[in-house]
């Protein structure tokens, strides 16, 4: 049933256990229409497509690109066909398999439903033990809860122009995941001088010390490629939850884990001893400009 009218790469989006979050996020891509013009979209659960779910579950159509959203649960069924069968059929015939979101990448939120059975399609948290191990060279992980639509657009555009996508050890594109969510955070000056925020939703202060922010140890470009083109969690005063990392979700997302007031985890690659030395010294200084509201500091009254 290969289409004869189109030379465009065929694209198929299927789902395991999911909240549809990545689909919804993807639909927010401003250039969605233009992007999809480069592909022949066979099936997507929330977009009108050439084929229905019934057609797809017959497992007769091959697709060049398979996007899998949601946690892999081999026993879950779509139209009475197991996810195991669906995924294996489409994966073996595809050139690229994209895991959309942290559930598909590492197991994520819905791994908790059945922790011993569910996983990502290639990884189970950090262990490469998912169902697509034999096809691992084809797998691109786009972790995130949800993914940023531009991250998916980047991968699809690279495929459309036949360019190599360089991946990290967790199969995430380095172009998108070599940054930390901390890079580009508007609160960096507060982080440098160790000034805490007074609570959630404030413009001033750093969320790392009390509010649970994971940005200094989370690979993501959320503060570089902004959400809805304007913002990010940390910019509006919510901590980064570290949703792109294999350990997501953690417990107590809104609270920094400390041992005797000392952060349990310190910025990535920084020895704890060095971090504590630097923090202790930085905390010594009281910088009036950073203590109150920035707009008040300059007010002449």
């Amino acid at each position, binding site marked *: 049933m290969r289409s004869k009218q189109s030379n465009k790469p065929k694209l198929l989006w299927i789902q395991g256990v999911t909240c549809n979050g990545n689909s919804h996020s993807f639909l927010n891509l401003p250039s969605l229409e233009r992007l999809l013009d480069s592909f022949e979209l066979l099936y997507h659960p929330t977009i009108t497509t050439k084929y229905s779910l019934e057609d797809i579950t017959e497992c007769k159509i091959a697709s060049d690109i398979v996007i899998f959203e949601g946690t892999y649960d081999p026993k879950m069924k779509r139209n009475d066909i197991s996810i195991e069968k669906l995924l294996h059929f489409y994966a073996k015939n595809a050139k690229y398999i994209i895991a959309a979101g942290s559930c598909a990448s590492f197991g994520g939120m819905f791994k908790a439903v059945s922790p011993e059975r569910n996983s990502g399609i290639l990884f189970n948290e950090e262990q490469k033990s998912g169902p697509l191990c034999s096809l691992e060279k084809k797998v691109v992980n786009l972790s995130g809860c949800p993914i940023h639509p531009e991250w998916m657009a980047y991968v699809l555009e690279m495929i459309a122009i036949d360019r190599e996508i360089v991946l990290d050890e967790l199969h995430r594109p380095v172009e998108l995941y070599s940054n930390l969510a901390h890079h580009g955070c508007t609160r960096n000056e507060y982080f440098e001088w160790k000034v805490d925020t007074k609570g959630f939703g404030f413009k001033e202060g750093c969320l790392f010390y009390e509010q649970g922010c994971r940005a200094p140890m989370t690979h993501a470009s959320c503060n570089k490629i902004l959400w809805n083109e304007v913002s990010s969690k940390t910019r509006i005063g919510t901590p980064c939850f570290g949703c792109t990392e294999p350990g997501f979700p953690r417990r107590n997302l809104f609270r920094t884990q400390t041992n005797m007031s000392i952060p349990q985890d310190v910025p990535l690659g920084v020895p704890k001893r060095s971090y504590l030395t630097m923090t202790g010294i930085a*905390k*010594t200084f009281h910088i009036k400009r950073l203590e109150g509201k920035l707009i008040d500091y300059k007010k002449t009254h």
Partner: protein
Amino acid sequence: MARITKEERKQGIISAALKLFSERGFYITTIPDIAQKVGMSVGNFYNYFKSKDILAKELVIYISEYLGAEIRQINERDITTQEKISEIVSMYFDMAEEKPEMIEYFLRVYLSNREVFSEGCEGMICVSAFVTEMMMFFDDGVAKGDLRNQDFFSAFGLFMGYLGGMVFLFGEKILPEPLEWYKKSISQNIYHALKAE
């Protein structure tokens, strides 16, 4: 005979100044006193330290780094948290007996003359090596489940305030027994106060 290097000279000044400051007090001790004790001219002294205040700050950093290095060695040993407490107590009391000027300086000069250290030695700046190592100790103890997770300064004050107090009593010749005699019971007290419930 080998010439004394500049670094050795500097060490000589640090040792002499520590002794004089801790015995006589910061304000009474003068630069000519220190220069005389190390056998150098006052003019030459200024080649090493530009002022008495700068020397005072250098001495705090010197003590903090010395203590920090000692505690780091204990932190890096493969022993239990309870054993680490005993080792830290033991090291601190040995230091108070063998190099009393170091702890005397810390207690009688640094903590008692804050105005000297108000610029350039604020907060943790000059004692960071020592405090950082205590943070590493507490962090590790909580992470291993040995110590109760609580506020850092509450725990730090209990540990170091206790040791400082005992050394002060020792210095005042109030303690009926030598410091060695108290090591075991004080280590036990600290452990019982800080251990996880």
